[in-house]
């Protein structure tokens, strides 16, 4: 199964994860 997130954020929003990386619930994914 898959979860797709689509959201609006300020241009300076940055992902702190990259494709292929393993993540866990609650782990930081991005910040402004």
């Amino acid at each position: 199964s898959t979860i797709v997130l689509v959201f609006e954020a300020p241009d300076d929003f940055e992902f702190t994860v990259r494709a292929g990386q393993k993540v866990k619930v609650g782990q930081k994914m991005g910040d402004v």
Partner: protein
Amino acid sequence: IIASWNETPIKWYPLPIAVGALLLVAIQYRKKVRQAQKEVHVDEHGIEVVKLKGPWHVHVLGALPLRNLSRLWGYVNSFELPVWFRPYGFKFYAFAFGCNLDEIEQDLTAYRSLGEFFYRKLKPGVRPVDDAVLVSPADGTILHLGTITDSKVEQVKGITYSLDALLGVDRPSTVKAIVEHNPDMEVVDDQEFANVNGIEYTLGQLLGGNGGNSSPGSATPSPSASSDRVSSLASSPPMSSSTSAKKNEDEGDASVVEPNASIQDTLARDVSLVKQVGISTAKGFAPGKPKHERRGSSYIKNARPGHSLFFSVIYLAPGDYHRFHSPTAWVVEKRRHFVGELFSVSPWMAKRLEGLFVLNERVSLLGRWRYGFFGMVPVGATNVGSIVVNFDQNLRTNVRGRKPPPGTYNEAVYSSASKLLNGQPLTHAQEMGGFKLG
């Protein structure tokens, strides 16, 4: 028989029928090709309509009874296992799919079937929550992420699908109603009311002191202050709308009915989401936010100046913990359930099957967060066709019966979940639901 079998001479000669059959096939094929070339679909204006046939493997996979297989898989995994067998069976599953058994909440004999084990909970504390604006909603692997340009979401390098196909297009009436509702995302003055248990509070009262004055940057009391405020409000006579005010004049002071504790807590949570996280209220009120930052609704999917639309796709492997949590503090205003296929969504498939996420069964949860639009779309797959949303008891996925045309959805709105926020409020990493087998 043996004598005739042995003595009868065998004579080989070409069968003219095969040639004839081949000839027929060739003629038929030529006719088809010619017909396809001639065949031009035109619409009423005479403009040619190009019908996408789609890649051949979509048809092959689409021909498989994926939904029935999925339901059969779920049915088989709902059988109750003998207690002595459970530890061995689940340990084997954990070994085969890489589950971490140290993190799960109960001992293995407590799970009656593989389906229950698949939908296991984790021990409290095994997933610390980061205080970033966006955290991961699930355990899994980041399949892809990036920004959305021209409403096209990139599935993998070179393959894109449209945002409208993923989230569903607003019905014109909805958009009209929204624009009427928030012509320019105007902020409502603090006369907006929150109706709790029949008692109406103005937003100014709820948010405490300067809650009504929405000058940007106004000091925002900490949520505890506003929740204290709410409890103290519960005892003070609320300001209420004109009709009941008239009644109050007649009868003197209205007898104050204390809203019960749970309603008070709900209100405190909603007020803290408005104050602390800056989520706008139902009518766009977001104290401490400059005017253009306030959004009363979230269905208009084009980002505002200084903002962009971002996406990320997380793939949950069969051995991962399959409940999903809220990736941020946000308000879910509506959900759209698309009955679709149940193709596998493994990275292998995602690289090959174009438009996979808009073909599969999925539930688009649409709402807003502090920066505007926020959407979360759990997408089902062959082995996990059931998507559960804790605050939506009516949602049924992977059900038997006729499939509606692709792209259609049925919609539910959560406006009754919170009058103040006009949707289901969720806090950081709050459990929202999950994927079940079958």
